[in-house]
């Protein structure tokens, strides 16, 4: 026996010793007890959850982290990373950094496999991939996971960890692999992929139309290509060489409108009913002026992807999976303000921050974004003054607040009324060095900020600056014309345009594997995008807010002021 194997046994023994001793003593007590220990019959759903926990979290049924060896001799606990880190949530694998991680869903494992990589460069020198193998059985799969040996005897490259799993853990994991990406998602047939878009009745119809038109134009265009391909074989052949997913060329897209009426508490049941009648593959776009949460929760519960809904109030979560937002909405502006102040920390000189917050949805979202980020940066909570719906802050009250707190910065999370506050700051002797307002909340009013207030007033601005945005105009103009975009609804149209661009790429990258988790897996592997509206959109496994940026800007002098940039797109 080689030294290595010896070592290995000793290690395994060490790990298992407590268990071994426990089993032995149980055995000594009575034979029936051990029967019970081995015959823990889990319900299928419990077994599924335990298998899922091994796969996704690297945690064994005992609660202990799963142990593995990687790179030949590097020990890693499952809590650092587990199967999902490489084979992804759908189990369909990935190609990253020149390493091919093959699929590990039951459907692929339990049949002979032959690699076909179209259009990807794979570094065969350093990470020889599995190119071909016969079908797995439960037993040979266990050998693969423990020893890294395929049924044809090929030793896998050392990126794939070798796992220490006992028979029961192995059985749970294998049973789970068999359920992974097993049944294609609803809403997809040979000829069709169904989508729906959610519109709530608090949205004025001009806005709803602005959201819908680009999506419908996109669907119309895609579907018209099918006829073209059927008629003109030459264009079909040309297209086929360009797309990575040939079957997609002939699939029709449908887009239903799911209109939600009445109070948000009733949306869930309306959604469930729409979904029962038409189980779509995913939700595309959508728009609401209220919190998106009820729709977000519905997506989460049904594992129904929702791509780029238009809302200022997304759910802020690092773990939820099924909704991909443009950004964190208004919250992100509060976050940017906190990061900006953190950067200017010297100017604060240990003094406090004063927040004046209108008790409105926008005001609250800005304030929450600021406070949570500020806290994470390690600062004490700001002094917060909340204004009721119609409450006006007098000059005297403001002066008093400034005297009492001597803040280093003042944040005014309010609409047009913030202008009055700015005005009284002009002459105030206690004016803090930095004043921050939200350009989204102020809307068109930003342009009427008087000259003498401009040099101490910073605004959060969540989009590419207008002067830079010009260059994008030309290439989206034809599409926007067809989608009836107007200046008043330009932002909404552009957000829908982004949804169509990302969907095109996502559908192609699925390569015919219409599983919902795979949709997010492929989006998670996309490169950063420079599209209209946002300076940069970026993606990554589990990342659910594509735009991470927000500028801090000021108005320059003059009657027709431009916005001047005072920060990076993403502030660190």
């Amino acid at each position, binding site marked *: 026996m080689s030294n290595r194997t010896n070592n290995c046994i000793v290690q395994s023994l060490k790990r298992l010793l407590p268990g*071994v001793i426990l089993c032995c003593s149980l055995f000594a007590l009575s034979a029936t007890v051990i029967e019970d220990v081995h015959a823990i019959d889990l319900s299928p759903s419990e077994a599924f959850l335990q298998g899922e926990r091994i796969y996704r979290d690297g945690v064994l049924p005992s609660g202990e982290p799963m142990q593995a060896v990687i790179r030949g001799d590097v020990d890693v606990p499952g*809590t650092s990373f587990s199967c999902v880190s490489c084979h992804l949530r759908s189990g369909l694998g990935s190609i990253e*950094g020149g390493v091919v991680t093959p699929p590990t869903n039951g459907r692929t494992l339990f049949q002979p496999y032959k690699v076909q990589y179209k259009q990807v460069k794979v570094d065969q020198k350093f990470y020889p991939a599995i190119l071909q193998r016969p079908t797995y059985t439960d037993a040979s799969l266990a050998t693969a996971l423990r020893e890294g040996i395929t049924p044809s005897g090929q030793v896998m490259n050392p990126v794939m960890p070798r796992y220490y799993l006992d028979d029961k853990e192995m059985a749970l994991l294998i049973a789970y692999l068999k359920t992974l990406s097993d049944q294609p998602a609803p809403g997809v047939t040979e000829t069709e992929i169904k989508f729906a878009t959610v519109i709530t009745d608090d949205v004025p119809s001009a806005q709803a139309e602005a959201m819908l038109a680009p999506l419908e134009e996109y669907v119309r265009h895609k579907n018209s290509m099918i006829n073209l391909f059927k008629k003109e074989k030459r264009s079909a052949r040309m297209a086929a060489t360009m797309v990575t997913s040939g079957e997609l060329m002939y699939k029709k897209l449908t887009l239903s409108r799911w209109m939600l009426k009445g109070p948000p508490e009733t949306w869930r049941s309306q959604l469930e009913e729409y979904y029962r009648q038409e189980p779509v593959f995913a939700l595309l776009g959508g728009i609401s002026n209220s919190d998106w949460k009820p729709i977000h929760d519905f997506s989460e519960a049904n594992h129904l992807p929702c791509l780029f809904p238009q809302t200022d109030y997304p759910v802020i979560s690092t773990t939820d999976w099924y909704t991909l937002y443009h950004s964190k909405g208004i919250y992100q502006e509060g976050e940017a303000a906190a990061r900006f102040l953190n950067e200017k920390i010297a100017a604060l000189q240990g003094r406090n921050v004063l927040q004046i917050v209108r008790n409105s949805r926008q005001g609250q979202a800005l304030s929450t974004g600021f406070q949570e980020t500020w806290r994470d940066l390690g600062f004490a909570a700001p002094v917060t003054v909340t204004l009721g719906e119609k409450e006006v802050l007098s000059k005297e009250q403001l002066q008093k607040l400034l005297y009492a707190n001597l803040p280093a910065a003042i944040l005014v999370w309010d609409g047009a009324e913030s202008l009055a506050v700015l005005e009284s700051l002009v002459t105030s002797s206690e004016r803090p060095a930095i004043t921050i307002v939200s350009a989204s909340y102020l809307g068109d009013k930003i342009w009427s900020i008087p000259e003498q207030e401009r040099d101490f007033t910073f605004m959060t601005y969540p989009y590419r600056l207008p002067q830079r945005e010009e260059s994008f105009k030309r290439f989206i103009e034809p599409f926007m014309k067809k989608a009836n975009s107007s200046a008043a609804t330009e932002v909404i149209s552009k957000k829908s345009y982004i949804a169509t661009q990302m969907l095109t790429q996502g559908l192609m990258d699925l390569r015919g594997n219409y599983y919902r988790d795979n949709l997010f897996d492929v989006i998670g592997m996309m490169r950063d995008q420079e599209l209209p509206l946002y300076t940069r959109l970026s993606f990554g496994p589990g990342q659910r807010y594509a735009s991470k940026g927000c500028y801090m800007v000021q108005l320059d002098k003059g009657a027709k002021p431009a916005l001047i940039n005072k920060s990076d797109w993403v502030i660190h």
Partner: protein
Amino acid sequence: MNTARLTSIFLFLFASVVLVSSPSRAEELKYKRTIENYTMPDVTLVNQNGARVKLRSLITSDKPVVVDFIYGTCTTICPVLSAGFVNLQQKLGPKSSNVQLISISIDPENDTPKVMKEYLQRYRAKAGWDFLTGSRENIDKVMRAFNAYIPNKMSHYPLTLIRNPQDGKWVRIFGLTSSSEFLNEYKKVGGI
């Protein structure tokens, strides 16, 4: 038969079950190794604690310095590189402060101090392993300085750079080393 003997038989029985479930260890792998000179840009980055760090002074250390490029939500490559970092710290034990490990984010959009701190915790990193983020401009400068520029984070490759404190030269490792190879490389630059 006495009890001790009984137990040992059971132990043996269990041991043979254990044998089946013990993973085998693969052959050591190949990697590409070169010696390079790099000039560091004078940039300030932000670490996992939100502290501003001058990269030049962190790197111009009298300890060996190891640099890699990763990001918080990265698959496949980063877990493997990071497992190597934490393994080196573990192998050095109480002497782990003799080496400065630096991971530089190639996804500065998403990698905030919070994300980076959680990442290090997941790997049970000890002090002496810093994860740095910063403006895209500065990150690009650093990647260029190490001849490791990639315009798109998804096209990164496994790269480890080890600085020899004696002559300031860098060992550039393309590919993934085993932990003993990594330890050897570390020792070659004077690491103890």
